[in-house]
């Protein structure tokens, strides 16, 4: 098991869920340590996105627990889980089409101290959020497009905006669902560098990805799912030659 004796940042224990009689996930346990990049891989339909949906509270598992830094967050309302420090991106980018990049970064930083402050214009309501937004614009090279609507941006920039929105509120854990899908090598490498930078700043990352090269070059640990079951886990080098893993991928290919 992925465990250095520290408390895991994210822990799933014995999570299971069924949809209309089909076991989508069966007894899944995994851990992501602080400052670690972990990957979930597996053939299509293995249950990877379902796992993400359970972590973010979109689905309630029929059994099992999700813990963030030891605190149970299983099936809490999504916005509370987000505020607890879990952020997520989507396979098909889900941005707020008519909102500008800057607005994305501001809206993703809700604050609770003075709820009435939300009645003020965004740039006055939360100066700290403003600074953070400017920090992210710089970090992700989005300054030139900050006033453009999400809808008007090319795919690569949209992905960056989604990433920016996800890290705006300084999450503890980032869930990335196929972050380099449809990208060429250069773009994917940029994302890889970005993720390494984020990890060094203290973020834990859990990612789903099909691009094996990308995964092998980046992840500290891997979990392999097939048909809702964890068939293997370990270091990337170990997984590369693991017979069960190869079998799952080859088996699906026929």
């Amino acid at each position, binding site marked *: 098991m992925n465990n250095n004796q520290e408390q895991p940042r994210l822990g799933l224990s014995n999570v299971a*869920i069924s*949809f*209309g009689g089909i076991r989508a996930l069966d007894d899944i346990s995994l851990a992501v340590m602080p400052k670690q990049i972990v990957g979930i891989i597996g053939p299509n339909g293995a249950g990877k996105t*379902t796992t993400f949906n359970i972590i973010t509270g*979109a*689905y*309630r598992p*029929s059994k099992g627990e999700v813990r963030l830094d030891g605190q149970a967050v299983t*099936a809490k309302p999504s916005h509370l889980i987000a505020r607890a420090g879990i952020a997520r991106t989507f396979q098909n980018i889900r941005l707020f089409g008519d909102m500008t990049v800057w607005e994305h970064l501001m809206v993703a930083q809700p604050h609770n101290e003075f709820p009435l402050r939300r009645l003020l214009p965004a740039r006055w309501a939360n100066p700290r959020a403003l600074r953070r937004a400017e920090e992210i614009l710089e970090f992700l090279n989005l300054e030139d497009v900050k006033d453009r609507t999400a809808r008007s941006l090319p795919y690569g920039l949209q992905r960056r905006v989604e990433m920016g929105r996800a890290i705006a509120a300084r999450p503890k854990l980032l869930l990335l669902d196929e972050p380099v899908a449809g990208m060429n090598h250069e773009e994917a490498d940029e994302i890889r560098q970005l993720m390494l930078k984020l990890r060094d700043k203290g973020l834990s990352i859990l990612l789903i990805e099909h691009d094996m090269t990308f995964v092998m070059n980046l992840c500290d640990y891997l979990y392999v799912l097939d048909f809702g079951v964890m068939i293997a886990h370990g270091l990337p080098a170990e997984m590369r030659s693991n017979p069960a893993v190869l079998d799952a991928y080859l088996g699906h290919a026929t």
Partner: protein
Amino acid sequence: MFLQQFVNGVTLGAVYTLIALSFSLVMGILGVLNLAIAELFMIGGYFGFAVILAKLPLPVALLAGMAGAALVAAAIEKIGYQPLRNAPPVTPMLSTLGFSIILQNVATNLWGSDPLQLSEEVLSARFTFGPVSISAMQLVVLGATLVLVILLAFVVQRTSMGRALRAIAENRDVARLLGVSAGPVTLLAFMLSGALAGAAGVLISLHYAAITPYIGVEIGLKAIAVMVVGGTTRIWGALIAGPLIGIAEVMTTAYGGSQIRDFVVYGLMIAILLLRPQGLLGGPRSEQGPRV
């Protein structure tokens, strides 16, 4: 008295069934609530009325109402639905709202806002079975509804067009891949739904021997409740829900006062939307997994 009200309720229910089927054809297949159906019901009624006033026989009136409403429905499909078919369903719904506003204005200007009345009831012969008396017109309403429902069932289940309708209802994209072309099929759905609404309009207006431009809002909108109660995705739910609501409405009027009947009918609709959205006859609630 009770049985008499029961019969009256079933008659009203038959009309509701037709309009609900009309709503349900478009809602179930295209996911759009065609608010103009209430006015297609009204317009069909006026066409039929005009035919009867011209001393032509009842079947001609029925056909006139159905054909007229179907043609208007085709226009609505071409102008109001087709260009908007890829927008979120609320948008074409608002477009059909525009058509319903136009239709009601047209009717008010052509025929006046006062009720048009028949000088004598059509088919006023009454038959008495014990405590219940039923008029020939009521029998026609029930009979015509039955025939139309059977015809609809035949078209939907047994013809290739009907198969296409069902395919599109299941999954529009897959249907397109399988070569079912959406255009003519949605036009058919609209026209069928128009024909049913028009038939209902003719039947009810002849039954009451009067018609106003406002029967669409009075009666037609309530058929939405019937559709919801029966199940928006299972069109045959309307067969049960129609008489159910017709009876409930007539009973409420007879025993509770006419003013609370709308309250009861719409209350039932909201209760179903919240508690059992698939309707009485609908299948299992479709879900993606237990929601938090």
